[in-house]
């Protein structure tokens, strides 16, 4: 089996003063390259924390997180940044575009950080795919929420990531816009053959993935193909 992501006995404990809060505990799963997975669960159950650990945004308190054969806990901050830049794409609930850059420039950032040359055609092509070629010179404040999220989709795919993490990508959008963004996400993903991990509480969105991981109180309570019912 060819796993791009592997978690083994992963736990996360937040220490605040003398109190310690266990947010994640005994998390074990692997994700096959090219597959689509959703993580669902009630608010506060630890989904975002889990995603952060998987993407190397934070360090696990115990256990092993292995991304593309590299154990993330062993890496320095700058090495983690390089891994993210090389292999990972992100989509956030609140879009997270650089306010100082145009749509086009935002899409180019991951490639520019790598020092790649002649990247404009690719960025424009991606913007075209999300239907915003005409808005490429607009700043984020000049775009609607749905449009901003589409720009961030284009950005997420710009560095040809091996794995894409999305944290509640439709959380700030209305139903109609959500549908459009989700369709784009899955289309682009299919075309690029990227592994997709989506955190969501939108069950319709979860149903579109091949596999659903349910989290509650910091533990995985179910890990099954989509459509399988709880219990």
């Amino acid at each position: 089996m060819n796993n791009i992501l592997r978690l083994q006995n992963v736990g996360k404990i937040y220490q605040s003063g003398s109190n310690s809060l266990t947010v994640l505990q005994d998390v074990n799963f692997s994700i096959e390259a090219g597959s689509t997975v959703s993580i669902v669960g009630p608010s506060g159950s630890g989904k975002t924390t889990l995603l952060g650990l998987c993407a190397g945004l934070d360090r696990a308190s115990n256990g092993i997180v292995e991304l593309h054969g590299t154990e993330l806990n062993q890496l320095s901050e700058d090495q983690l940044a390089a891994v993210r830049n090389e292999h990972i794409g992100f989509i956030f609930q609140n879009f997270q575009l650089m306010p100082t850059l145009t749509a086009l420039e935002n899409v180019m950032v991951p490639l520019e950080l790598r020092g790649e040359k002649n990247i404009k055609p690719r960025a424009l092509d991606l913007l075209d795919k999300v239907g915003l070629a005409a808005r490429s010179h607009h700043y984020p404040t000049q775009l609607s929420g749905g449009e901003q999220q589409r720009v961030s989709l284009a950005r997420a795919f710009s560095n040809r990531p091996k794995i894409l993490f999305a944290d509640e990508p439709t959380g700030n959008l209305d139903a109609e816009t959500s549908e459009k963004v989700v369709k784009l996400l899955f289309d682009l993903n299919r075309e690029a053959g990227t592994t997709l991990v989506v955190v969501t509480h939108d069950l319709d969105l979860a149903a579109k993935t091949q596999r659903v991981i349910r989290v509650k109180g910091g533990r995985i309570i179910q890990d099954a193909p989509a459509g399988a019912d709880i219990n």
Partner: protein
Amino acid sequence: MKQYDLNFPWLLKMAWRDSRKNRSRLLLFISSIILGIAALVAIYSLGENLRDNIDSQAATLIGADLALYSGKPLDDKTAKLVNQLGTERSEERSFASMVVFAKNGGNRLAQVKALKGNYPYYGELETTPGEAGKTFRNKREALVDQTLMLQYGAQVGDSIRIGEVSFAIAGILQKAPGQTGITSTVAPSVYIPMDYLDQTGLMQKGSRVAYRYYIKYAPGTDVEALVEKRKDDFEKADLDYRTVESQKEDTGRSFRDLTRFLTLVGFVALLLGCIGVASAVYIYIREKLKSIAVLRCLGVKAYQAVLIFMIQIVGIGFLGSVIGAVLGAVIQQFLPIVIKDFLPFELTTDISWLSIGQGVVIGTLISILFSLPPLLSIRKVSPLNVLRSNADEVKSEKDPITWLLYGLIVLFVFGFAWLQMQSWMQALIFTGSILAAFAVLYLTALLLINLTRRFFPTSWSYLWRQGLANLFRPNNQTAILIVSIGLGTSLICTLLFTQDILLTRVNLSTSGNQPNIVLFDIQPGQKEQVLKIAQSHKIPVNQSVPIVNMRLEEVNGKTAADFQKDTTDKQSARIFGREYRVTFRDSLTKAEKITEGKWQGIYTENGTPVPISVEQGFATRSRIKLGDTLTFNVQGTIMQTIVGSLRDVNWGEVQTNFLVVFPNGVLEEAPQFHVMLTHVPDAASSARFQQAIVQAFPNISIIDLALVLRVLDEIFGKIGFVIRFMAGFSILTGIIVLIASVLISKYQRLQESVLLRTLGASRKQIFAITALEYFFLGALAALTGILLSLGGSWALATYSFEAEFSLALLPVVGLFLAVSLLTVLIGLLNSRGILSQPPLEVLRQES
């Protein structure tokens, strides 16, 4: 429905609660005005201390109860009058003469003061050794100014020669009544006893001598009343007089002008800070829009919402002003050091509670005034904003009240200026200039920003482009930062430029074969021999001009007294009091041009008035027209003249220029002396030549332009120090606004840099982006300031000094780099936390 009102205590409580999380930030906003207030309080206190000191030390400023000045020896009648005055009298004759240091032959033009009597009666001639100021009077001894002593390496006991007499140096003169560091730089004095004056041989006819009489009255005498009675006698005898009271007024007036000037400079720093406050409050309010909308939903009225925030600003504005006032009281202790070279007395400093009070009131008022426009925008926040996701979008339509507030602000500036200057016109000009300066700075800043944005090469690396793009982040304070840092830069830069223009100008005129030495007071019989000495030293004489001293008695048949009586025909008394140095020749010089009338070079028609030529500017100032008849008194001989022509004179060239020129054929036989202009190629031959001249003719005075240049440089150094000190306030305010702005936008930067780290940027890349952002900011500000002062200095050079404007590149580049790097340094120091932020934050941020 029940109508209820939220009471003031509740609003206070809400204001207190709301500020809880932001108190340090609020204080930071207000810190921008702390320095401005400090400057004002320091200068106000200085002004008060000056007033007190002048009051208590006025007597030592003139050294006597009454001083009388005359430009000519007293006639018998006047001498009798003067000798009746007071209980004790001293006499001083002062004139410019060469002094020669016997030890090394060094010589320099100095102000020689021959003294008889026990002057000063109040204060003393401060000397080292201390008793020299008293003992030198009875021997062949002199007191020599300390700058001269230093310059020629002289010691007490050495001898100096003045005219034909050698004096032993009895002491180094540190201070004499009314003397400042500046006067001792420009015209260092040498005191000698009057008994030896005749022996020096310097009192020939034609030398310019000032005669002064110092009079002491018995303690308790009402000198003012006595003088009032004698006023007419004094005026008739052409005697200027000065009492302790009038001295007090005069000194007070000049220092009032100085402190007014400083106050206005300080006020500019305060205004800068206020703009910083306004822009910070604006951002603060934008961040609060959501909570304001919630309050509005819960039933808080618009004006109450405004009050909740206004209370915070008032509180913090007051606190900031108090801090500023305290700082000002501390700074004030150091101000005397800054201006000591301009003071004729030792300045003692006291805390001035009045000034501190004024500072606190002004600071509180002005911080409210400038915060009002953003505060009042709160009224427009609709409760509906709660329901919208992008609540921080503000409608940009202008509120009419905002315009009213801007009007109030301008009125405040005008009012402040008026209080300082007490003149509508000047206050108007000041307000207009301030508005114009800010507008020009602001527009230049905008232009530069836009040009940079448009023409920045897209091929440059991402880090550079991102650094630049950061200047345009939402809620940025780029423009105000550029204005405030730019203003400071421009002040310093203008100072550099003007200093340069003037020095280059003097330098230029002494380069090439332009004359660089002026010999004057050459008696008619000495002329041939001086030319011979010049010849033997192989020094060319560029010009030799005869000069005749005369006084003006009547204009169109009316005397000074006639003009005084006739109020409809105003004529300045000045033109009668002064001595005119007049030349005669048959042709114009290269620097002259006739603007009106006809030049007449030779006078033949005996009996008719002599056609003279008057300098255009002087004629205008003195209301003298073509065809006016002027009556001159040429050392006893009355001479009728008529204004035959007006001349434009280019004063820029080193040569002898005159207000009044006579034609040939009139003054040839009048008592006169000559002025010669020569060019010496180097310092060594200059020294040899000067020594030879002074040796042969001690009465001849020499002005060495190299020395003038040095003196000018020194004076600029002293004035420059004062201006730099004040420009420092504006720059420091700029820096504080910068720090505040960095901290205000820190949250936003944090978000950006965390996002960049998530997308894979290394620490080094983020560091580079931050540094570049500040570099762009500093560079744009420096450029704005430099451009502005370039424009100003160019205009000054072209229109005011009529000099070639040459750009000294090195200091400008240096200033540019210094400002840019300073900005980078401050920016980076305040951004430290950003680099170490863990990237996980990106997932946790609320939208």
